[in-house]
């Protein structure tokens, strides 16, 4: 048994084209995601925001409040704001029209703000101004009585920060970009389809001569099928672990701290991917190239529905047809990763695990039914 396992293992991992889809492609995709999101996701999934380009027009610098606001802006410069000081409002408006700045602060007795659009950065600028206005009386007092304490007082006004600091039940920052990586790992689990489809060709006498040769040996067919499944699930589980390590250790994206639960999801995802491939590989007499083409669809389409290409897809489906999210293995896997990495919601996680377990059993059974045939109507 170990001997057969060893050779099947060697044969599978040496098949570059299959291992590319099952291992290298998800890693490449993850790297592309990482760089396209501006590498702004830290270890906890918290976003490190780019500075917001802002124009500042000084209209009145004579009164105390104007000076306080100017000091306030200086305090934020380099940390939150990238300030361009302009001499006239016209020039500032031109920069705004050309999208070179997000907003214009007017330094005057009652500071004001002009923004061109609605959006997160615009909200941050508004929130910063609100924070200043709410505390302006206190700032003016400090400025007149203890001007040396002004910087530390301004630093304590951090209301604008809270605007963008959304904490989840799990205590992790909810970064919309992290969900792409959950969808990516879910997709990678499904890419076990490629391993399964390829292996099904070596198992069935009606598909290949190799299948025929293996079918006429005295080794029990059930034994060969079980060894194939064990080898493929082992290889794919290792593939997923490598991807997990790459995402967590190289890309620094947290998948949660519950390692046993993470391994459980990875393992079930591996079974589902491989068994989908074995079942699909054994249902028709299409050639390998054709089946590989369909396998790309079979992995990418559920991946798309789980938010691999468009992050909000899963939420849209949840809103309009939630059943798809329950039966789409990529969505369930992605949800399980979400529960571990973000929500820390064990009830929802358990539900995901149960769904995955049922799917695994059904797919194992259908894959076995597909490849167990001993003799055929035609070859």
């Amino acid at each position, binding site marked *: 048994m170990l*001997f*057969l396992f060893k*050779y099947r293992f*060697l*044969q*599978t991992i*040496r*098949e570059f084209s299959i291992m590319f889809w099952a291992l290298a492609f998800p890693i490449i995709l993850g790297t592309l995601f990482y760089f396209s999101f501006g590498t702004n996701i830290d270890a906890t999934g918290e976003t490190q925001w780019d500075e917001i380009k802002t124009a500042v027009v000084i209209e009145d610098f004579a009164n105390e409040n104007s000076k306080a606001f100017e000091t306030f802006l200086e305090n934020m410069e380099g940390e939150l704001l990238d300030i361009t000081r302009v001499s006239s409002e016209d020039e500032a408006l031109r920069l705004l029209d050309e999208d070179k700045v997000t907003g214009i602060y007017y330094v005057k007795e009652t500071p004001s703000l002009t923004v061109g659009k609605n959006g997160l950065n615009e909200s941050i600028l508004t929130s910063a101004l609100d924070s200043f206005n709410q505390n302006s009386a206190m700032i003016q007092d400090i400025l007149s009585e203890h001007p040396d304490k002004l910087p530390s007082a301004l630093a304590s006004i951090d209301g604008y920060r809270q605007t963008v600091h959304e904490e989840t039940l799990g205590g992790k920052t909810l970064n919309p970009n992290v969900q792409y990586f959950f969808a990516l790992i879910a997709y990678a689990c499904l890419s076990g389809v490629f391993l399964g489809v390829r292996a099904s060709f*070596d198992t069935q*006498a009606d598909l*290949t*001569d*190799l299948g*025929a*040769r*293996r*079918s*006429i*040996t*005295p*080794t*029990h*067919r059930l034994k060969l099928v079980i060894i194939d499944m064990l080898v493929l699930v082992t290889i794919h589980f290792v593939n997923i672990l490598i991807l997990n390590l790459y995402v967590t250790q190289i890309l620094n994206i947290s998948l949660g701290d519950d390692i046993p639960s993470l391994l459980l999801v990875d393992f079930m995802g591996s079974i589902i991917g491989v068994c989908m491939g074995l079942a699909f590989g054994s249902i028709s007499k299409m050639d390998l190239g054709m089946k590989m083409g369909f396998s790309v669809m079979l992995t990418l389409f559920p991946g798309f529905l789980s938010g691999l290409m468009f992050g909000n897809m899963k939420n849209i489906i949840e809103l309009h047809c939630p059943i798809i999210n329950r039966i789409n293995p990529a969505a369930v896997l992605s949800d399980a990763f979400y529960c571990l990495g973000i929500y820390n919601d064990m009830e929802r996680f358990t539900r995901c695990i149960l769904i995955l377990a049922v799917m695994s059993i059904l797919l194992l059974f259908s894959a076995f039914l597909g490849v167990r045939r*001993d*003799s*055929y*109507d*035609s*070859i």
Partner: protein
Amino acid sequence: MIHIDNLVKRYGTLVALDHLSLDIKEGEIFGLLGPNGSGKTTAINCLLSLLKYDKGTITIFGKEMHPDSYDIKQNIGVVMQNVAVFEQMSVWENIDYFCGLYIKDKEKRRELVEEAIRFTGLQDFKKMRPKKLSGGLLRRLNIACGIVHKPKLIIMDEPTVAVDPQSRNRILEGILELNRQGSTIIYTSHYMEEVEQICSRIAIIDHGQVLSIGTTEELKSMIKTGETITIEAVALSEDKLAQIRRLPHVFDISYEEQILKIRLSSAKHNLVRILNYMQEHDIAFGRVFSELPTLNDVFLEITGKELRD
């Protein structure tokens, strides 16, 4: 050793095997000869229980063959028509893997693999992957994988297709050696020369039926043709052709593109008689060939068509 009785296999309305019956004895090299699509491979696949069949029984080593007849399969080796090996594994690994499907003992397996490699002359290619091997070497690897466990019965389905003459001779010598070592061999081919060269008994198959069965000599003696004489002759008139047709033992002639082909029944001095006639009638002629009947003649007479490569 093998008894096939009234085997019928249909693909929809097409009858691939039509009440095919065969008896193959221990120690034979039994040839299944027939054109492409005659039912040879279908018969082999039914014999191995890879294909379901509609009617008939197959008995091997005295037991009825079923898909789960693992005890029978233990003693069968198969060399498939197409090369069936793992591209990702070396020559040694492939032979070892297929041996391992029959033999559990590691030491015994190692010995058998070495022996199969020596037998097929693959010693210098042990570590090479199949894609780096030539067509002839690949065929040899295919054979090594099929015979490595030293089976009592070896089924070879057209093992020399697309093989260079040198490799083909080596393969045929190997088959004779396997037979000398005690294996019974079923050999399918549409190359009549090969079958004639190595098989002790031959069944001629067409349209899924056994048309004739026997040794080469028995098959040849079943037909009317005893000799075929071919002569390059210029401008033969219809009168002359009619006279030739009336010569003793001549039963068929054809004349196309200045080539005269005369079929005669078996008799002494056929060639002398024909050449005397040509000289007496001042018929100019060039090269002359005389051939004893081949299996192609047998096939031609039985079916009315040539057994083409």
